[in-house]
């Protein structure tokens, strides 16, 4: 466990960084093994160090919850960046993943990854952020998700369903062969 003040501040920073959502003082205290009173003190300390001009983050507090956010002066830089990033052409890897989902969706991440032979978590996240695919809970396996193209995706292609994709039947056949023979 973090021992002195500096160590605890560092631990707090790491904790808030990893935890995406607002985090309650209580939970922070549990993680760092300190009392809620000390958590508040640490947060005050952290907030004041974040005021330095070379820091890009700040604390957003709401009641007894707190989270890291970027300073508002960087909003336009960051918004531009996110927009440019999401508007880029699809990479070959993204196209491949999207193709699998378009042809064979709804499909689980496991099966997508098995076909591509690589981990796809980031690509799936990016395709979701771009509004090209969506995920929903697998009715048969409530623990896992299935991925399918969005309505906007089909609309953009001017198609309505996987069977409308070029050479759909042939690809299905190759897939069946692959999945039974490997």
């Amino acid at each position: 466990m973090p021992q002195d003040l500096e160590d605890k501040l560092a631990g707090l920073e790491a904790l808030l960084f990893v935890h995406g959502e607002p985090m309650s003082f209580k939970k922070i205290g549990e993680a760092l093994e300190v009392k809620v009173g000390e958590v508040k003190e640490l947060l005050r300390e952290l907030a004041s160090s974040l005021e330095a001009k070379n820091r890009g983050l700040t604390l957003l507090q709401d009641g007894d919850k707190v989270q890291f956010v970027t300073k508002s002066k960087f909003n336009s830089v960051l918004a531009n960046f996110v927009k440019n990033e999401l508007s880029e052409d699809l990479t070959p890897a993204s196209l491949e993943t999207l193709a699998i989902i378009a042809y064979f969706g709804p499909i689980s991440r496991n099966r997508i990854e098995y076909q591509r032979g690589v981990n796809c978590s980031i690509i799936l996240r990016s395709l979701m952020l771009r509004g090209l695919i969506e995920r929903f809970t697998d009715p048969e396996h409530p623990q896992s998700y299935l991925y399918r193209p969005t309505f906007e995706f089909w609309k953009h292609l001017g198609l309505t369903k996987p069977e409308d994709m070029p050479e759909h039947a042939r690809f299905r056949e190759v897939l069946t062969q692959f999945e039974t023979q490997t």
Partner: protein
Amino acid sequence: MSYELQMEKYSGPLEKLLELIEERKLQISEISLAQVTDDFLRYLAKLKKEGELQTGRVSERELARREGLRILADFVAVASRLILIKSKSLLPELNLTGEEEAEIHDLEYRLKLYQGLRPAMKIVAKLWRDRREEFSRPYFMSISAFAPLKSAPPEGPEGAPARARTLTGFALRGGDDARAALFFPGRNLQAEALAQSLDKLFSSFVALIRESQVLQEEVVSMEAKIREITEVLKRLSKISLRRISEDKSPTEVIVTFLAVLHLAREQLVLLEQESYLSDIIITPKED
């Protein structure tokens, strides 16, 4: 335990070979390799037997079966070189080609390299278990960090329906408060591009399937050769190894040798050698 795990606990033939040499406190050399050949072949036979047992049970696990087959093929490849070394020590007049001599040296060299690099593997294993993992944030996790401004689709189709899947956060397009789905297709998104991409991926499947078939064939043909020679030997009464090795290509000699050793292990034949480096006499065992 699944078949896959069964096979995976053997990290590979070099590891095993090194273990056998080190057990006897020997240096890596042609001589020590010849000395551990029998142990290695015995181990290979055991591996093969376990593999077969397991395959029978989980035949639906095609991938696992192939993995086992591959490992087996790797062991057989090393075994064939060991037999070459052993043959050379037993049949001194056996003329090895330059290529075969090179293969023997290559095995020695690889084993030394493997020995030199083995500590690196221990280091990675320790780091992996030490639980010093660093954590990062998911891709674009904090797009939702500020006031919930919704943006209109920058290049989406007209009148895209409102969806729950909206991107809150710093405004991607000014202070537009309209609730609308974000849609960033990119300029290259077309059905044809997707089909091409899939076609490329699927052609690699074909290669993968073919590769596994070739491998399977190789192992099968090796096994068939061994069986064939075993049959011949059973029909002969007494024969010298030198004689059955005559006029044979080195590969055939290796396979012959493998078959003889196999029979000896199964106690179907007796091997006799009058003195070190003299010819080996093979006698079928009486039932």
